[in-house]
């Protein structure tokens, strides 16, 4: 890797101007990266709470207590919520949560006063929020990403809105990611090479690059679907018939693109362990390489199956190699974190530090997800297109959520929030970790048990124990998120603190 000097002589980015704006108006006009980051964090956590409640209802639908179709008002409605749950966790919860943390933390880590494009960052938050509202409202109004038993005229309009909202959310996230990546590339302190950038800032640079290589492919997919849905039949690409819409976009929440959510997790976990133990890695450049490798394996635009038959793609050597290789960087980084623990002072307090507990939980969940992902691509297990797909998804999502909470505990000052009490932090992290473990486990066993392809796992109604385990997992995850949201408090104003 070559050393890159800052593009400007003074590596301090333009700081926010002294504000004369009332506090209530700040979210609408601020050019302060920490404020924008905090907005992302708070709203994504609230959306995460809502999404996890939807997840619990979906799990309830898999038990024999209620018929899933009856609970949501029909199979189409169930399918809408099922897809919303997946897209929402990725685009409305985990990615914005980690992006928000990055906006607040990365500029200070690299010695910049502010983000490279502070106004673009504000625009990215509001565009993301408006896009998210369009997505949620249009799904509730009968839209979504396809329907199981046909699309009516009104649903077609609502689906078009869902697609446009999804594209808006993705573009907004990309604008924010570009802002963070440009800060790392161009506004580093003089003399700081890319190899010396702290692990979290580096992981965000890698993540932003992976997002930029992958998410525009999803936008292109959406444009094609939108043209099919709204254009004249003469220009239709012939695949807008429901539920093909979802089949053109599901690659985004499956391997390898699902790992897009996990790249910053490595950086956060490593820094949290370093902060908790007070020790430094003997091979910091190894962390750089490991995170870079994981970012490379998360680039997933090639795995969209619009132009290739899905089965050809997923039986291909590249798909299998990516699935197997993803375990390597996660295991390597866990080894690096273990080295930090061994080098640091060994006391029970340090080991029970909520940051340490959280980082450990995030890495374990990510490791479990990568392991299931590796099993999934091994052909004899026949796990493709089974619920095992969602074991990987749940593991990665939970790792992202736990890493977000760990970041709140590691950098509370930069996010201008009060430090989360140790007991609360430990409790929420353990709740989320336990819940996600149950989800991963039940999904994996479901995958092994299913004879036919059954992504929605509806055919497993008879397996009461497994479905109840899944429901308990979803409830614990929701409880952990609720605890985190409840523990968030703004930092006292300077005068108040004094």
């Amino acid at each position, binding site marked *: 890797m070559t050393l890159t000097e800052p593009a400007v002589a003074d590596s301090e980015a333009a700081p926010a101007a*002294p504000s004369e704006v009332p506090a209530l108006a700040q979210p609408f006009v601020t050019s302060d990266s920490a404020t924008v980051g905090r907005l992302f964090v708070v709203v994504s956590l609230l959306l995460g709470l809502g999404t996890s409640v939807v997840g619990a209802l979906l799990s309830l639908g898999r038990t024999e207590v209620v018929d899933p179709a009856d609970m949501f008002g029909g199979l189409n409605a169930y399918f809408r919520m099922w897809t919303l749950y997946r897209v929402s966790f990725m685009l409305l919860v985990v990615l914005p949560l980690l992006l928000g943390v990055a906006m607040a933390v990365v500029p200070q880590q690299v010695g910049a006063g502010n983000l490279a494009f502070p106004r673009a960052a504000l625009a990215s938050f509001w565009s993301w929020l408006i896009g998210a509202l369009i997505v949620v409202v249009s799904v509730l109004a009968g839209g979504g990403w396809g329907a199981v038993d046909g699309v009516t005229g009104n649903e077609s309009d609502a689906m078009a809105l869902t697609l446009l909202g999804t594209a808006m959310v993705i573009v907004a996230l990309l604008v924010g990611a570009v802002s963070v990546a440009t800060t790392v590339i161009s506004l580093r302190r003089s003399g700081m090479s890319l190899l010396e950038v702290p692990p979290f800032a580096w992981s965000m640079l890698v993540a932003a690059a992976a997002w930029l290589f992958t998410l525009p492919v999803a936008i292109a997919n959406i444009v094609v679907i*939108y043209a099919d849905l709204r254009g*004249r039949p*003469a220009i239709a690409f012939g695949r807008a018939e429901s539920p093909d819409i979802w089949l053109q976009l599901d690659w985004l929440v499956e391997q390898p693109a699902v790992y897009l959510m996990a790249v910053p997790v490595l950086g956060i976990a490593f820094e949290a362990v370093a902060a908790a133990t007070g020790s430094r890695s003997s091979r910091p450049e190894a962390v750089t390489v490991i995170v870079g490798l994981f970012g490379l394996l998360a680039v997933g635009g090639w795995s969209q199956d619009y132009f290739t038959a899905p089965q050809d793609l997923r039986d291909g050597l590249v798909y299998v190699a990516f699935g197997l290789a993803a375990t390597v960087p996660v295991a390597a980084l866990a080894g690096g974190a273990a080295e930090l623990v061994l080098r640091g002072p060994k006391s029970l307090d340090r080991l029970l530090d909520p940051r340490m507990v959280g980082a450990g939980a995030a890495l374990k969940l990510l490791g479990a997800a990568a392991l299931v992902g590796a099993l999934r691509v091994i052909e004899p297990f026949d796990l493709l297109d089974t619920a095992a797909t969602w074991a990987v998804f749940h593991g990665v999502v939970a790792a992202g959520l736990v890493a977000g909470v760990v970041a709140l505990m590691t950098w509370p000052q930069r996010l201008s929030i009060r430090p989360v009490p140790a007991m609360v932090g430990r409790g929420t992290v353990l709740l989320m970790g336990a819940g996600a473990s149950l989800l991963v486990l039940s999904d994996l066993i479901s995958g092994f048990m299913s004879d036919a392809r059954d992504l929605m796992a509806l055919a497993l109604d008879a397996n009461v124990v497994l479905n109840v385990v899944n429901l308990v997992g979803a409830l614990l995850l929701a409880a952990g998120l609720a605890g985190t949201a409840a523990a968030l408090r703004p930092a006292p104003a300077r005068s108040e603190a004094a």
Partner: protein
Amino acid sequence: MFTTGFKFFFGLSAAFCAAALVYGYTTGGDHVGPLSLGWKGGVGDHIGYGLLVALAAASLTISLVLVSFRDADAAAQARLQGLSEVMNDQPVAASFWPVVASFGVGAAALGLVLHPAVFVLGLALIVLSLVEWTMDAWADRATGDTSANRELRNRIMAPIEIPVIGALAVGVVVLAASRILLTVSQLEAVTVAGVVSALILGGAWLYVARPGIGRRLVRVGGVVAALLLLAGGVLAAVAGERDFHHHDETHHEESGEPAGGDHGG
């Protein structure tokens, strides 16, 4: 070689071109119409397509101007001023234009599905915020003094903003008030107009008679009145106008001809 300004506007031009194509094909365009600017085949919705193509052309022109004159090129400006370093430590002023741009994008997305007028409104908001945003970004780095920068920006933009905002405000007031007066009954319309006129007169008298009234109170009162007017206008527009007895109907009735009949033969 290529300045930042050129890259931005050239990229913007490409994005508008792509948007025009997608918009053209998804609003009824066929064959190579949207690709050939309507030379062969239809372009779909003319207004939206035309606006997007115009924006693409304008962005392309601006990008060429910027690369020709090296504007917004910090390194070139530093060389011109004989500085050895590029200074980039100016504070970034608070601005609500990013939020306006976001709402513009949201309105354009909604308009694509709901109504072309909403789409055009979204585009207008995007263009407006792009112009203002560009001016804000330029003013942030015009001098080293924040207040001087703000003054410089206002000196250029205020002569444009104030008349435009004034015209828009008058338009909104006229539109909203007319909707309200056309919805309620004739007697109620006269009553509403009388009461509102009296309130305005009373408020103005109070302000003149007691100059000590806080500016904040006046501002809050103005905002509340504007919101009430806007909400009333929207509700009235949704409810629709009251039934009118038109003069021509009376005339037709008097002359024995059927009202609204087809006279075209």
